[in-house]
């Protein structure tokens, strides 16, 4: 069953502050991802891998083409959806994990991780229990759980972010270098999380700089150089 | 006829104001009676006394007084204070009316700060001198806005002041000019009478008129109108209570003034309504200090 159907999308940036200079990024991008499938985006830096992920998430606008996501009840085109539809999609169907945590002042790590569950109506006790299990799996020391992550190390913040990204059940999960700069043990933990998601039927699209991780989780790799814009 | 006599003797029209002015004020009074508690603007005149000395009350009295009326004027409950004596003298001169200090004999009672202890009757009119007629002024300095609040009966914020009293003093500490709702509609400042007198406004058989000369407003409580003091469910309105009776006439359940007797802390509490106190003494009632050589028995000056 196809969860994500990308049809002929294109993206360029117009830099008005540089005299209207246009930077083409990608064009003619088309691929499908089925439930339970993990597709890796490959290619060198600057090829547009992150831009494709951000277009799928609705974070970047799409100049042309369609990005169809099946949320279980309807198929929504992210490229033309209203902000409200994209927010609803993110709240139920579409997840995104980057390596950077956007820290919210004064909110404890455990609450940051549990928040997507509470937003889905799961009561605080269960949400916290699942958040605790997730943080334990990612080897975040328990003494940090009730502290706001602003003072955490980069690696600790990254694991809080991964825990938050993986905790909820989404039909489609986008991964933007989730294992960058993680040590071996934590990298293996993330590989385990990705495999669990796949087994549960989640469709995944990811960027993995680490070939070992990619080989461990991806069903196939899509070389983004094929979509280089003219 | 007597109007002509008055004019001849004083070179003023009867009751000082010209007839056109009196008509204008009477129209304002009629409107005020028709809309109980509503402040009717009127063209307040210069009077031969400073604003703030009761010119609002004086103009109302001048507009309603007739040659057969008997006038009583009280200030802080007393008939013999400067202001009361001056206003009584004024009307004696410009209207040649009879005056009295006895509540029961008066047809018009002009007052500042008190409602007489003796119950009023349907043949009497009580005229209040009002310094600040606007009960919402505490919360809202803009006249345009207070008029809008009255028009919309938007009075919820009146309770903010009462809330503040309870928060700071444990009770509603407002003791004078305690706001009331008239006839279930307008919130009114009953003028600076003690809240002790508020219950007397309710269902009163006499017509009550309020004149604010400086602020140019007239308002009224018609006879037998419902007048309710604002309060909270769990802090109901309560008038002041006095623990001891009047030192001169022994009356209880009346409003008392404190009188200092000497430099050693000696004091007594006596009726603020001098006419009421004198009447009781004349009827043989005696308080703790009555007949005491310090006191003349004429009542207390305050």
């Amino acid at each position, binding site marked *: 069953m196809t969860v994500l159907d990308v049809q002929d999308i294109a993206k360029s940036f117009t830099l008005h502050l540089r005299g209207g200079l246009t930077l083409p990024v990608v064009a003619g991008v088309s691929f499908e991802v089925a439930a339970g499938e993990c597709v890796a985006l490959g290619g060198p830096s600057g090829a547009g891998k992150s831009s494709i992920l951000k277009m799928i998430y609705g974070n*970047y*606008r799409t100049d042309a083409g369609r990005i169809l996501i099946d949320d279980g009840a309807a198929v929504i085109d992210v490229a033309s959806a209203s*902000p*409200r539809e994209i927010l609803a999609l993110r709240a139920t169907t579409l997840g995104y994990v980057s390596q950077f945590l956007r820290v919210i002042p004064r909110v404890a790590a455990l609450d940051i991780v549990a928040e997507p569950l509470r937003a889905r109506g799961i009561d605080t006790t269960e949400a916290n229990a699942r958040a605790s299990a997730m943080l334990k799996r990612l080897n975040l020391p328990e003494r940090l759980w009730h502290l706001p992550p602003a003072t955490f190390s980069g690696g600790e913040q990254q694991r809080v972010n991964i825990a938050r990204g993986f905790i909820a059940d989404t039909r489609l999960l986008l991964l933007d270098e989730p294992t960058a700069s993680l040590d071996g043990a934590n990298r293996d933990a993330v590989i385990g999380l990705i495999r669990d998601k796949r087994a549960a039927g989640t469709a995944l699209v990811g960027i993995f700089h680490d070939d070992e991780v990619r080989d461990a989780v991806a069903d196939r790799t899509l070389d983004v150089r094929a979509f280089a814009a003219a | 006829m007597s109007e002509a006599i008055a004019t001849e003797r004083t070179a003023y029209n009867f009751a000082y104001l010209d007839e056109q002015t009196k008509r204008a004020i009477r129209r304002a009074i009629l409107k005020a009676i028709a809309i109980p508690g509503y402040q009717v603007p009127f063209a307040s005149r210069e009077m031969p006394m400073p604003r703030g000395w009761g010119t609002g009350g004086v103009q109302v009295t001048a507009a309603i007084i007739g040659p057969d009326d008997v006038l009583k004027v009280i200030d802080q409950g007393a008939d013999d204070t400067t202001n009361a004596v001056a206003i009584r003298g004024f009307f004696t001169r410009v209207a040649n009316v009879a005056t009295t200090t006895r509540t029961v004999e008066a047809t018009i009672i002009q007052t500042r700060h008190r409602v007489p202890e003796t119950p009023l009757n349907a043949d009497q009119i009580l005229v209040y001198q009002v310094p600040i007629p606007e009960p919402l002024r505490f919360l809202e300095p803009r006249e345009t806005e207070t008029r809008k609040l009255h028009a919309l009966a938007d009075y919820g914020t009146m309770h903010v002041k009462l809330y*503040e009293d309870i*928060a700071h003093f444990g009770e509603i500490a407002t003791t004078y000019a305690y706001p009331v709702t008239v006839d279930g509609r307008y919130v009114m400042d009953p003028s600076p009478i003690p809240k002790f007198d508020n219950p007397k406004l309710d269902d009163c058989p006499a017509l009550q008129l309020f004149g604010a000369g400086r602020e140019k407003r007239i308002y009224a409580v018609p006879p037998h109108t419902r007048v309710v003091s604002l309060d909270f469910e769990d802090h109901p309105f309560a008038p002041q209570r006095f623990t001891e009776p009047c030192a001169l006439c022994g009356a209880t359940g009346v409003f008392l003034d404190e009188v200092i007797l000497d430099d050693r802390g000696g004091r007594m509490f006596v009726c603020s309504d001098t006419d009421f106190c004198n009447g009781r003494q004349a009827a043989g009632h005696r308080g703790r200090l009555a007949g005491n050589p310090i006191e003349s028995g004429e009542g207390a000056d305050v």
Partner: protein
Amino acid sequence: MCEEPLLIAEGLTKFYGARLGCRDVSFTLHAGEVLAVVGESGSGKSTLLGLLSTELAPSAGHVRYSMRDGSLRDLAELSEPERRLLLRTDWGFVRQSPEAGLRMAVSAGANVGERLMAVGWRHYGNIRGAAADWLGRVEIAADRIDDSPKSFSGGMRQRLQIARNLVTAPRLVFMDEPTGGLDVSVQARLLDLIRSLVADLGLAVVIVTHDLAVARLLSHRIMVMKEGCVIEEGLTDQVLDDPQAAYTQLLVSSVLQS
């Protein structure tokens, strides 16, 4: 997705004489949505807030609002009592200057309790209880309930203003630069408080700010205004991460990276 919008603005235009305040602004706002209106001083964002909140009368256009009884009403056609009731029950307005939004002459408790008294609460104990509860929710110590806001710091005053607005459980709150003029550390605390209250209570908010970081933290959607017109709008992260208009790109590039 098919639920009715809370507020619909259509072609809102305001001229001050010959000078343009804002022109042809249209949008819809749903329950629980936070819309940030960004732009520099004079861009028309405060005029827009004034039009939405009925403090200003539009030169053209309409604002419709879904009342608590479910009816959709043109705000210009509300009677004055209806308008006032709306302002003090279903709406809140948090102003940049707490002195403009508070009664500085009465205690913190009375400031919070005022709206309750205005809608007919007449039990002192209940009013005080609700005020104490709200002071707690905005992190003001219970023993400050009888203190004047004059004795409060700027951040505390702003939190008090928020409590005063939220005590009647409004569905829509207007905020005009709520963190303006506060120290950075105080700002952070206030923003976090606003963020959690908005999420917990499911408030719809229209927030005017020139601070893109505030917009990013609080809002779902953003409208960029320049010279009275909306020049770009959309999902907050999309507008900030992939700005299209030249002016938006300039605004975004002017933010210091943290």
